[in-house]
């Protein structure tokens, strides 16, 4: 078969294919390999395969090396690679020896298949989100991420507060998957979704005969989460009666299923969340003080999206990558005008609302970039935020956000801020004046 037929065939398949010589230099790189790695063929050819492919096994357990040394093929090995955008891409690889017309080994060939969609579905089904799924460069969020492993390993009860859609459950899942309990279940309950009577049986379960229609024992969420983590969302909506029962679990590490005659031991880590102000509920007599202090051992406060606008472009990029994988589209990004409108919007629904907006755009956008026409009406027509002329440009907005973030990091110290940003201090002063960043806490 001629070389041009081979090129046509390799160019038409969905799997990435590349070949290397015995010095690991890339000899060929097909179109799918370009797409999955994000590296153009023109850059890849002649480079070391490990500097293009960037697999997690390259340094310690290279599959091609094993194949070349042993002469044996490897089929369907699951690994992850780092693409040119810095995203980890799960792939399945197969390797074989490359021989010339005389049967002499001249190198190796590797094929790989993108498993992103499968991995994403598996993650959603099994709630296996990690800290890496918390997308933010905001200083406050980075501070939380920095201490997350310590919080996770401590096994202490955690209270996460933040507005609706700010990522409370994502943080809870990340804590579970960083903890010693990660091999056990993560179970979530929305305390505001069910009436009290149902919620009690849902949480603690019931025994046969506890009430009419209780024909057999039913384990509650505490039993299902045994050894693992129980996430109690909307904890502020819990009735006083149930608060007492929850307090008992936290204090005595035991509970009673409905109709049971003896308590059951509980080995469950509690992570609670609320978008309400629990101190306000305390003073209103709606929330028990003793329960509040039991829950408030470690408190994580998540800011609203409107307080971390520098994350909006990152989140948009993240959601575009996710929806491209799940919906089989190839949306490239957002236009400058669409981004300016998205940066201006206030997001009362926070990150969840932004995700919905991007998904809305995916329905309307057939390819290329998301345009302003694809945005929901409330984003386009909002007048809720005054945007000064210098801030209207998205690049300027990002620059202002970076300056503010860095000033926060150095507690208002302009000399250190200027040094970090690679600016002369007078340049920094000029930019601060331009964006109206005048007063800052030292």
């Amino acid at each position: 078969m001629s070389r041009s037929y081979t090129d046509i065939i390799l160019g038409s398949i969905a799997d990435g294919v590349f070949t290397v010589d015995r010095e690991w230099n890339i000899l060929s790189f097909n179109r799918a390999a370009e797409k999955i790695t994000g590296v153009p063929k023109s850059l890849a050819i002649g480079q070391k395969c490990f500097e293009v492919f960037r697999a997690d096994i390259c340094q310690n357990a290279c599959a091609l090396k094993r194949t070349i040394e042993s002469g044996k093929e490897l089929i369907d090995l699951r690994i992850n690679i780092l693409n040119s955008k810095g995203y980890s891409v799960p792939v399945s690889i197969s390797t074989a020896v490359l021989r010339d017309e005389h049967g002499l080994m001249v190198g190796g060939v590797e094929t790989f298949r993108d498993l992103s969609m499968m991995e994403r579905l598996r993650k959603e089904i099994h709630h296996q989100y990690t800290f890496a799924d918390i997308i933010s460069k905001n200083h406050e969020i980075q501070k939380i991420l920095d201490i997350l492993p310590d919080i996770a390993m401590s096994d202490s009860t955690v209270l996460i507060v933040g507005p609706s859609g700010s990522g409370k459950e994502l943080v809870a899942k990340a804590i579970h998957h960083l903890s010693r309990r990660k091999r056990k279940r993560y179970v979530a309950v929305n305390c505001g979704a069910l009436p009290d009577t149902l919620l009690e049986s849902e949480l603690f379960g019931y025994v046969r005969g506890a009430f009419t229609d209780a024909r057999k024992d039913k384990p509650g969420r505490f039993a299902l989460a045994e050894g693992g983590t129980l996430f109690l969302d909307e904890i502020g909506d819990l009735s006083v009666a149930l608060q007492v029962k929850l307090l008992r679990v936290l204090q005595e590490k035991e509970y009673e299923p409905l109709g049971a005659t003896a308590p059951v031991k509980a080995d469950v880590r509690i992570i609670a969340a609320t978008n309400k102000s629990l101190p306000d509920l305390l003073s209103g007599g709606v929330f028990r003080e003793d329960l509040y202090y039991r829950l408030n051992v470690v408190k994580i406060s998540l800011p609203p999206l409107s307080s971390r606008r520098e994350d909006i472009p990152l989140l948009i990029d993240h959601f575009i990558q996710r929806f491209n994988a799940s919906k089989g589209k190839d949306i490239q990004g957002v236009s400058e005008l669409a981004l300016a409108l998205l940066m201006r919007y206030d997001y009362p629904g926070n990150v969840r609302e932004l995700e919905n907006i991007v998904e809305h755009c995916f329905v309307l956008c057939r390819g290329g970039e998301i345009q302003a026409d694809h945005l929901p009406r409330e984003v386009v027509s909002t007048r809720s935020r005054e945007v000064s002329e210098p801030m209207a440009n998205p690049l300027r907005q990002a620059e202002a956000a970076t300056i503010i973030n860095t000033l926060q990091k150095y507690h208002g110290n302009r000399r250190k801020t200027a040094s970090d940003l690679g600016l002369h201090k007078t340049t920094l002063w000029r930019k601060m004046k331009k964006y109206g960043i005048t007063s800052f806490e030292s």
Partner: protein
Amino acid sequence: MKIGIPLFGTRISPRFDCSQTFLVIEVEDGQNIQKQIVFVCESSPIKRIRNLAALHIDTLICGGIDAFSERQLYFHGIRVFSWITGEAEAVLCCFLEGKLESGMMMGADGRCCGRWRFRRGSRHL
């Protein structure tokens, strides 16, 4: 100034999160005053970066790096030159001459022979 370079043999490691061996160089007035090899065995990126911060590294020169790690490094005040490929010593010389930029591909002769996709001011920062 203290510089950290994750290694793969004598080359810059292709992935920051997969290298256990770091070349740590202490530089004063543009001159190497101390070099050491440090082993960082943490698999968790947060702990790995904390270990680097504990070594008082203020500049990291690395190959491929995920966005999460790059943001965490920035949070710890560590300046990052990323997506660099080539021999570690040649890259270090280029950095000390003030010529290093993110995304540079260093050839065998120690000169820049191309650029990867990322430059300084990567959108992940």
